[in-house]
């Protein structure tokens, strides 16, 4: 095709029709938006702390078993000034990242294969759903036999916990791609791996997020179970701190460690997945504009 230029005299007949379909409406200020999203969550946390405090006031259990929220928070703040605390958190996060990353790769490959090959779906479709509902703790005896008390044993279970959810999410996501999108991709010359890389995966992405999120939840649970069961000498982790706190009957430390587990889980879910999900939907015009 030759290079074509629009003649300067051309008047654009579309000028009036070219009003974009969705003009972005006036948005409230950043601070207000942030506040309106955050205050219900703060209120929920306050309510939780309040119930905890009431139980303490009622002397339901002695304070060396159930300490006050104030004491636990103070311990958490104090812990967070020590390098041991951050070392443990780092070890746990590293395991989570490695385990989840491998689960993501394996789950994605299996998911694509099962979604696209009828024979594989018939063979493994039900099995993967079965694996997904199997409690991952049940894998630990086998994992310890296979890998001894090592990090590999923990990662093995984390991967087995997360990969089926991710694979299932991929299958569901691919199943819901509009046939026209696939046809357009073919017509426009996408073949082989490029078809998956540039058409299938991006088209499925919004519905994949649910599987990715669920996979993370399973990975995080399996990791905590693993860190409690498989204790590796000289390698502190959040789970190890939790377990040691129980052994030394240090209730403050125990609850502080539990708060860390909760916080990391919530942060990854809300900050990482929440933002990714919203970003993906906004770019595709899948978010209803609500002021």
């Amino acid at each position, binding site marked *: 095709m030759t290079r074509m230029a629009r003649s300067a005299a051309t008047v654009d*007949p*579309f000028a009036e*029709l070219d009003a*974009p*379909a969705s003009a972005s409406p006036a948005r409230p200020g950043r601070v207000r938006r942030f506040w309106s999203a955050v205050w219900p969550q703060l209120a929920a946390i306050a309510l939780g702390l309040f119930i905890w405090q009431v139980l303490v006031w009622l002397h339901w259990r002695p304070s060396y078993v159930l300490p006050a929220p104030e004491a636990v928070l103070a311990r958490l703040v104090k812990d967070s000034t020590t390098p041991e605390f951050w070392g443990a958190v780092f070890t746990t996060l590293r395991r989570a990242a490695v385990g989840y990353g491998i689960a993501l790769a394996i789950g994605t490959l299996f998911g694509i294969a099962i979604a696209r090959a009828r024979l594989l779906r018939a063979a493994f479709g039900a099995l993967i759903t079965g694996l997904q509902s199997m409690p991952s703790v049940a894998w630990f005896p086998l994992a310890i036999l296979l890998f001894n008390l090592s990090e590999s044993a923990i990662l093995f279970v984390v991967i087995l916990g997360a990969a089926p959810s991710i694979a299932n999410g991929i299958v569901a996501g691919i199943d819901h791609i509009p046939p*026209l999108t696939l046809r357009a991709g073919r*017509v426009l*010359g996408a073949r082989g791996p490029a078809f998956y890389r540039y058409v299938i995966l991006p088209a499925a992405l919004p519905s994949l997020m649910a599987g990715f999120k669920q996979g993370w939840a399973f990975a995080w649970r399996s990791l905590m179970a693993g860190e409690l069961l498989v204790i590796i000498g000289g390698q502190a982790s959040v789970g190890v701190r939790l377990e040691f706190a129980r052994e030394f009957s240090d209730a403050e430390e125990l609850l502080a460690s539990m708060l860390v587990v909760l916080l990391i889980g919530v942060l990854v879910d809300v900050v990482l997945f929440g933002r990714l999900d919203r970003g993906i939907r906004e770019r*595709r*015009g899948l978010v209803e504009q609500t002021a």
Partner: protein
Amino acid sequence: MALPLMLVPIPPSVASSDATVELEDVTKSYGVGATATLALDGISLRVATGEFLCLVGASGCGKSTLLNLVAGLDRPTSGTVRVSGGAALMFQDPALFPWLTVEQNVDFPLLMRRLPKLDRRRRVADLLEMVRLDDFARRRPHELSGGMRQRVALARALAQESPVLLMDEPFGALDAMTRDLLHDEIERVWRQAGLTVVFVTHNVREAVRLGDRVIVLSSRPGRIAAEYHVDLPRPRHIDSTENAELAAEITEQLRALGRPAAPA
């Protein structure tokens, strides 16, 4: 007749050069045995290089089947389909990729052909200018109106740089005003790019407005029922008296065939 000022000669290529698309005794049936349905029956068709051919017929006449065969998405049961240089296909739905911007959508066929980046950028800019959407390059499909989306789809189809453009009721879902403007637009692009166009529609007026030639297909099985050369000078207008009269004449003959097409 139209004012002499508005007369534009039909491209000489229509009359002189050889066929770009050639179908010989093409038959297409679906299923086997007693339940087989014949979608197309004995279609022989030549489309000259640079010609604008319109196919009209009621729904279910096998228009889309015919386009799929020419596009190479499907194989005929018998007969031969020959397309020199490949064909690009446009649907009624723009089928843009919602995860890509306007320019990335247009770039898609170029990316699939692994052209160098600089080359791609230049071609995308040219194409967006041609469909007059250069100001919307960074927008996402959901931010555009229906007519704009269809123009992006046109630019994306042109980016395949196939000499043949196949259009399957591309303006069927648009309002009348946008559709009229897009008629002018596709006519201009067709000439600028020197394309051969096969345009499927159920709207006889639209076919007469655009086509050098209009072929009427009968339904079940799809056969060529009639063929008209449209000698009206370009640019034409869909509501002009000549256009409407010729469309009425074709519609009349369609009715006489006992195969009513949708009125314009």
